[in-house]
């Protein structure tokens, strides 16, 4: 291929880093394979670990269009693939009638032409842009939709083609880069997974999370960043219903900066805990003495480290 795809795993690592995405080498390997072998990449993981972000960074770094299909229950062909522009069709029929056009087949050909076709994300993804580059197709939260759509997706993903009964089969000259994400609110059928490279996006370790924060919130004081990361890492070892993701860590750091904090203290933690934890039980569990305890551990750890 003549495109600008990265040529090695290292190149993928660099590309993601330039796009402000700090990734493990394992993720880079999976992504490289998906790009190189032209298969979708299936990303599964808890909410807020940066799955969707990969699609965005990829499209930016490669200079491709990003086409995003947000899934929801009841997603159907008319909102995912294509729809006919009925009002325009009606007008066209009336005009044909008024001008005395009687040939039925002619009318039919006319109103079921591409002119009246409204293209939705999946159909758009089969088209290359002006420079001949296929787009990045991000199918977000596939687990939210239902099995019938999954089954439909199988055809699209294996042949990159869509059949429109009135027109025929539309096939991509160049297959798009496909990223599928799932929060695992239900299991996706194996038939889909089989066609993809699979990767479980995990919470980052402390070192990686620190890197991420430095990239994402560069103006945060060093000490605060370290405290935030250690605090969140401690939280992830607790028995909570929903552990904070990377997105929450970033939000929290931003919130703390807005509050003009340069140092974590128990009071600040208590008042801003809602940014980090999203369930009342979890907040209740951590707030107060537990938060103070974690903070002590964090500070002791930092003191010992320096």
């Amino acid at each position, binding site marked *: 291929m003549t495109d600008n795809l990265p040529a090695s795993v290292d190149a993928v690592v660099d590309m993601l880093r330039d796009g402000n995405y700090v990734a493990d*080498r394992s993720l880079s*390997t999976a992504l490289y394979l998906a790009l190189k072998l032209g298969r979708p990449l299936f990303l599964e993981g808890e909410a807020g670990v940066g799955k969707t972000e990969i699609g965005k960074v990829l499209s930016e770094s490669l200079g491709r269009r990003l086409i995003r299909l947000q899934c929801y*229950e009841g997603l159907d062909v008319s909102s995912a693939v294509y729809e006919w522009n009925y009002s325009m069709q009606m007008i066209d029929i009336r005009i044909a009638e008024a001008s005395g056009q009687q040939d039925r087949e002619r009318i*039919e050909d006319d109103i079921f032409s591409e002119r009246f076709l409204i293209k939705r994300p999946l159909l758009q993804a089969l088209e290359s842009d002006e420079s001949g580059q296929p787009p990045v197709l991000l199918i977000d939260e596939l687990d939210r939709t239902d099995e019938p759509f999954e089954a439909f997706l199988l055809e699209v993903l294996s042949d990159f083609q869509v059949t429109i009964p009135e027109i025929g089969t539309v096939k991509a000259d160049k297959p798009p880069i496909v990223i599928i994400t799932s929060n695992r609110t*239900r299991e996706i059928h*194996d038939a889909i*997974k089989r066609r993809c490279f699979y990767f479980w996006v995990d919470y980052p370790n402390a070192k990686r999370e620190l890197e991420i924060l430095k990239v994402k919130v560069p103006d945060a004081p060093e000490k605060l960043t370290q405290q935030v990361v250690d605090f969140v890492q401690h939280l992830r070892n607790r028995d909570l219903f929903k552990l904070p993701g990377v997105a929450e860590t970033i939000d929290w750091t931003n919130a703390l900066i807005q509050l003009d904090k340069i140092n974590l203290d128990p009071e600040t933690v208590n008042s801003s805990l809602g940014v980090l934890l999203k369930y009342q039980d979890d907040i209740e569990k951590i707030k107060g003495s537990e938060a103070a305890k974690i903070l002590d551990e964090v500070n002791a750890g930092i003191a010992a480290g320096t």
Partner: protein
Amino acid sequence: MMAETPINTDLTPGMQLLNRLDDNKLAPNIMHFGRVLRAAGLPIGPGKIIDATNAVLAVGINSRSDFYWALHAVFVNRRDQHELFDQAFHIFWKDPKLLERMMGILLPTIDGGEEPPPDEQPLRRLQEALSQQDDRPDSEQEEEQEEEIELDAAMTVSERELLQTMDFEEMSTAEIDDAKRAIAGMRLPITEIQTRRYKASQRQARVDMRATMRAALRSGGDTIPLKFRRRRTRPPPLVILCDISGSMSRYTRMFLHFMHAVTNDRDRVHTFLFGTRLTNVTRYLRNKDIDLAIEQVTDAVEDWSGGTRIGESLNDFNKFWSRRVLGQGAIVILISDGLDRDAGRGLNLEMERLHKSCRRLIWLNPLLRFDGFQPKSQGIQAILPSVDEFRPVHNLTSLEELIGALNRPGGPRKQGVQEWLTAM
């Protein structure tokens, strides 16, 4: 968590060997590795092995870590397979002798003989899978080979709490056989709920523009007959949580039959058993053959007829499963007598959470057959405030009544319990 276990960065002898191999040898090795994983229970077919070879060729074999993750991306497609893959990788690609031997043999022994019962421990399972490749006559390995073992999520079982394989045979009387037959024919027609999908309809609901357009053309465009569509309905997902502790043991077998009948009748049924721990038995119950299904369930469950820790089991369910199986408005059936070893500690919180995450929570309690039943036990008191409906379940009649009740559209939540409490 999901990390490669630390390995030294030097190439192991196996890898050095691999580096010297040309591609002709690489492919067979990957094939054998794939076969080992397959024998250990991962669903790997020939297509995957070709994919894996392509993946490795694409990434190159300069770094062990890239090699690892390339194979990982192809062979693993569920998170819980990671552990098994990790162990297999390190055993397979580290042992140079094994590798050499395989270069010599290239073809593993052909599977034969009868299948031994499945084994739970992943490492042993792997060893046996690896030993399929091994045809040294003097090896100490067992003769038997495993063909296929179901991989379940509970791979980390280490110590067995109360290994009492349940003796179902005692219960086998003519009456029970009759009952089983009756249960096998039972259907669970839960009221269907509206989905967001449409289907064609005669009565007017919404105009189906696409169908209208086609009909208009058919008539030549003179008239435009309106076509309609309405929302499709479909039964909601069903999640059954069944208590299998000692106090419930007299009923367990019946319930298993019932759950099997329900599972095979419709899609989107998930079944969990709990005593002191929670086991997901959905996959076993999908087996059409009831005896095979029950046999597999018996093997998978570690805590038959032991104590009950409802709170802890529900905590497990809420933490690890509720987001995965309660997604689309599921109905939850909890089968338990509510007698809890932990005296209801933490139970009300877990019940509340469970109640909030599902469409409808129905509690089936065999104790309810006693007329003078009083909700005295702490476990029962903790559960009651959070259920929508409370029903007896101890004989065929009550099961049939249950079916009738589920077939009616549910009233306001908690109505059933309120009625029951006021009737007392």
